[in-house]
């Protein structure tokens, strides 16, 4: 594994391995000194062309807990402002000697393109509406930590702005890889134009799935991608597809509520539900650091050959 660009890069065994590694790193992050020397001397660059709080900090924390050096590229104060292209930017950074690039970009395929331009390992931290593989890895890890490692047959509903969501796309693939049954729940205007190739079903009716799902994953209304043009008003969206206190009360007992963040409180999820006992939102963030440690370790610790050492 040289890059992590898409969940498609992983098979079931690779996904299981990353989850097992993340368990090891969860133990590390629970220590008094939550740091191991594993990637000493490696350089990880975070290259974020879009705003981010949790993903960027999560990757940087992960790299630092592995003792890698972190270079943070802030687009707003860089030569990108002078018109430098993505290719020139990455080649300039690569010339300084780097081992991995964590990239977020508004264009789908940007991470794939970078992987063709540099020798370093590329981790896709979100490319447009395409994919956000580490989010799917942490979501599935969080579910497995609650429901046990075998989640085949688990019923998962992904609710809200599916069309604009790279999280949904990666989550559907990862959940399908683990055998879960995924239902997308959204108005027609927020579903992808075609579900061909999506291993899941779709419905417009949140009420009909409330009582019989094991996991309810909510998505953020992507206001920066003009999602609001897809329905009459936020209030109407909330009335039909938001997880209100009333709807949360009708979930089956034990149903897990997840949200990749950042939340529009009061739109796709009521604040009382987000902060309530079913919510795994804080745990998702916590697990995110461990899964990113696992990904960076897997990409950067590899050696060739299979020597034996006693």
């Amino acid at each position, binding site marked *: 594994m040289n890059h992590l660009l898409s969940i498609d890069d992983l098979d079931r065994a690779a996904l299981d391995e990353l989850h*097992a590694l993340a368990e090891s790193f969860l133990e590390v992050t629970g*220590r008094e000194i939550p*740091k*191991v020397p*594993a990637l000493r001397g490696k350089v990880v660059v975070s290259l974020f062309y879009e705003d981010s709080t949790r993903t960027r900090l999560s990757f940087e924390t992960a790299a630092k807990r592995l003792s890698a050096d972190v270079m943070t590229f802030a687009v707003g104060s860089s030569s990108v402002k002078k018109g430098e292209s993505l290719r020139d930017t990455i080649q300039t950074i690569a010339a300084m000697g780097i081992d991995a690039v964590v990239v977020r970009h508004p264009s789908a395929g940007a991470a794939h393109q970078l992987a063709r331009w540099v020798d370093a390992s590329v981790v896709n931290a979100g490319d447009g509406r395409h994919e956000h593989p580490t989010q799917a890895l942490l979501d599935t890890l969080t579910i497995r930590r609650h429901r046990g490692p075998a989640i085949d047959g688990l019923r998962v509903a992904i609710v809200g702005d599916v069309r604009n969501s790279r999280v949904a796309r990666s989550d559907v693939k990862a959940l399908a890889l683990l055998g879960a049954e995924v239902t997308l729940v959204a108005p027609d205007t927020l579903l992808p134009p075609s579900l061909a190739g999506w291993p899941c079903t779709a419905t417009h009716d949140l009420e009909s799935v409330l009582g019989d799902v094991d996991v309810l994953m909510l998505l953020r209304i992507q206001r920066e991608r003009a999602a609001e043009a897809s329905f009459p008003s936020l209030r109407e969206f909330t009335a039909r597809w938001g997880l209100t206190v009333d709807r949360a009360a009708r979930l089956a007992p034990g149903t897990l509520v997840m949200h990749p963040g950042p939340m529009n409180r009061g739109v796709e999820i009521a604040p009382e539900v987000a902060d309530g006992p079913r919510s795994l939102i804080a745990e998702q963030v916590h697990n995110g650091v461990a899964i990113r440690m696992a990904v960076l370790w897997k990409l*950067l610790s*590899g*050696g060739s050959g*299979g020597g034996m050492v*006693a």
Partner: protein
Amino acid sequence: MAGSRPGGRRGAPPESSTTQVPTPTPDPGDGGRFVFRTRVLSAADLRRAHTRIAHEIVERNHGPAGLVLVGLHTRGPAIAARIAAAIASFEDVEVPVGSLDVAFYRDDIGRRPVAPAGPTEIPVDVTDRVVVIVDDVLQTGRTARAALDALTELGRPRAVQLAVLVDRGHRELPIRADYVGKNLPTGYAEDVRVRLTDTDGVEDGIELWGPAGDDYADADADDGPGPVGDPPGGDAGDGNGGPR
């Protein structure tokens, strides 16, 4: 994977072999690079070694108080549990047993694939305790070094000691074991395999394997499983134990 082992090659051990239980355990993962040569310790031998090491640990530390046994994955935790059981049988004290994974502390990360082998779980705070690191085979000393680093991040033990079932020589670092089940001079190209029911699902024992297709010019490594007086030298890389 086990099926690929060429069983016929085990005719190779020389005449002096004193093998009593010539039952090589098929081993996955070496691609048939090794063939069984001899069984060095039987299950009964291993049990006696555990018992002796248990006595030595308690004697050296003037009793079992303040001890914690920390096994290194994969076989260390099982060996540590046996030593603890032996201590419990004659001291009537349960010495705490933990496990330690050293993958993230190794010095060969990036040179070969390294993967964590199990959880790090130590039930007590190691600070101010005597920690006995337990592993199956001591060779280069690099695993023990990594274990010292890993342990240091968990606390500040009063002392750290090292117990191993087999010391096979070829040290690359200034590390020695405090408690040794058996000193076993080996050729560098040979392989020492510890088998435990808990981790390997077969009868306990320690086996010596040699490289396949090699007629064993370095035959002095094959003096048999008899007692060996002095510890193997640190003559790394020259192929075998040499005269002692």
